[in-house]
């Protein structure tokens, strides 16, 4: 039988170490909403989302109350909209009407974000894909809760450099369209390589076409819990360090599995996966950077950071995998800058640079995340940074992503404020040398060879 010590440990994690379930994300397939008539398509999309997700928020709240575990976000991901709108949308503005419909549906059911305003163009683009990508700046500036993503590369197809170039331009255009809010629109736009179909985390969530009609995916969190546990093994060897991370990740993920199972049962929607990520927030004690410091770095970005992060990421997966029946999504340690107080401090102190962040993305989930760069950064430089990150994903057969925010009107030394879970970020310097000639080449980078590993 459960004892007082175990109950206290769990409740201590919840009360003082920021243990929570970060998100219950309901994936909804919109494939059956397609129509060549735009109005009819919008009507179908709205009705399907509102019908499927009507009990999502209240069910999440019931589970929170009964188990005493906070569920921070209830969200929705949908089939990539480029596919859904392809028959009805003749121009970018037509796609914006779907964005507005999704936003309206999200507000109606009470979710804070809806992801899937996306295009999958890892090899090349259809006219519909291109129209959607071109509509992103307007869609993100005119809506509140839409999240957008574009998959521009994969290990099997290589990197679609035409899409990379276009995305660089769209990141810049989105920044300009939302310049009055510190270019907030870019915080809701992710460029992917090897994007997963079942990711519950925003802004990159969408429901892949291989998924069911509706599915429950859950994202856990818990950097604070890992940090606290590691305080007990200061000065000990790597064996104890790794065992502690694994055991803690197991406990955290079990909570996610429990919540996912309950939500699935109550909503009568199949359970998909648990994403066992360490997802930080700007709250004190909820930071991945603090874990790395606890492992032994003076600041994130110091030599040893990549090795420490590789260790952390791997142990989180090893501990978490056994705790859940199905693991998926991005699963690993997130290293967003603006959403992690320790990362923000490291950038302010000059310990952490864009180049070091890029190295770190080779060994952890996701990529260059929530990084504010000078507003004057050109579209071609943004495309160059995207191409670099996509290459890391393509060659290493992993998901990588870029969520950069060129903060219009601000430069190095200033700070961008996004508010809430999105946090704030000091603007980080970007290499001043150009890559325009490279980015302006047409076509795609071929898929890499998977032999002769060196």
């Amino acid at each position, binding site marked *: 039988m459960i*004892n*007082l010590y175990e109950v*206290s440990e769990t409740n201590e994690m919840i009360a003082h170490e920021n243990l929570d379930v970060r998100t219950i994300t309901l994936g909804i397939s919109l494939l059956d909403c397609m129509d060549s008539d735009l109005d009819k398509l919008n009507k179908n999309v709205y009705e399907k989302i509102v019908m499927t997700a009507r009990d999502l928020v209240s069910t999440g709240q019931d589970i929170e109350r009964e188990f005493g575990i906070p569920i921070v976000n209830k969200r929705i991901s949908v089939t990539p909209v480029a596919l859904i709108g392809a028959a009805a949308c003749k121009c970018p503005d037509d796609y914006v009407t779907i964005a507005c419909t999704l936003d309206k549906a999200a507000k109606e059911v009470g979710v804070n974000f809806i992801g899937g305003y996306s295009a999958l163009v890892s090899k090349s683009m259809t006219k519909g894909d291109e129209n959607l990508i071109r509509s992103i700046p307007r869609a993100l500036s005119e809506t509140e809760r839409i999240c957008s993503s574009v998959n521009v590369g994969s290990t099997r197809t290589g990197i679609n450099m035409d899409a990379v170039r276009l995305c660089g331009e769209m990141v810049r255009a989105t920044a300009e369209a939302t310049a009055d809010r510190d270019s907030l629109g870019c915080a809701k736009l992710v460029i992917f390589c090897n994007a997963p179909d079942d990711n519950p985390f925003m802004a990159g969530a969408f429901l892949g076409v291989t998924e069911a009609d509706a599915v429950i995916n859950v994202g856990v969190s818990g950097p604070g819990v890992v940090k606290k546990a590691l305080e007990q093994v200061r000065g000990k060897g790597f064996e104890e360090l790794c065992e502690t991370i694994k055991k803690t990740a197991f*406990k955290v993920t079990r909570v996610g599995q429990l919540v996912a199972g309950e939500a699935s049962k109550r909503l009568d929607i199949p359970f998909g996966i648990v994403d066992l990520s360490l997802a930080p927030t700007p709250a004190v004690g909820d930071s991945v950077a603090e874990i790395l410091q606890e492992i032994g770095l003076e600041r994130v970005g110091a030599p040893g950071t990549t090795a420490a992060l590789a260790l952390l990421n791997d142990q989180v997966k090893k501990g978490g995998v056994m705790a859940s029946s199905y693991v998926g999504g991005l699963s690993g340690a997130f290293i967003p800058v603006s959403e992690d107080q320790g990362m923000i401090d490291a950038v302010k102190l000059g310990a952490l640079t864009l180049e070091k962040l890029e190295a770190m993305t080779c060994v952890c989930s996701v990529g260059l995340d929530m990084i504010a760069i000078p507003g004057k950064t050109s579209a071609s430089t943004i495309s160059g940074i995207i191409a670099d990150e996509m290459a890391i994903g393509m060659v290493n057969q992993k998901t990588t992503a870029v969520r950069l925010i060129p903060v219009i009107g601000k430069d190095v030394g200033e700070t961008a404020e996004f508010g809430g879970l999105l946090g704030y970020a000091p603007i980080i310097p970007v290499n001043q040398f150009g890559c325009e000639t490279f980015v302006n080449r047409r076509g795609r980078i071929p898929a890499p060879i998977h032999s002769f590993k060196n």
Partner: protein
Amino acid sequence: MKKCIVTVLGKDTVGIIARVCTYLADNKINILDISQTIIQGYFNMMMIVDVSGMEKDFRVICDEMDALGVDIGVTIHCQREEIFEKMHRL
């Protein structure tokens, strides 16, 4: 049987257990196990209870226990047992 864990945390005072137990009895909640300690003057109690006989909605019970805690000057939580079971047992 549907088990829940009631935890009571706060400054020690006269009659905490009595008042919590009275509330549980009034709501047909059966106590299966109690463990309790005092650490540096702070009262820390855990009860394993069976809520299958209770007539009120679980959320109403949670709210009323919250209110009772405020009244006594302690924090009372009532949570389904599974969260602890899942985390600490294979």
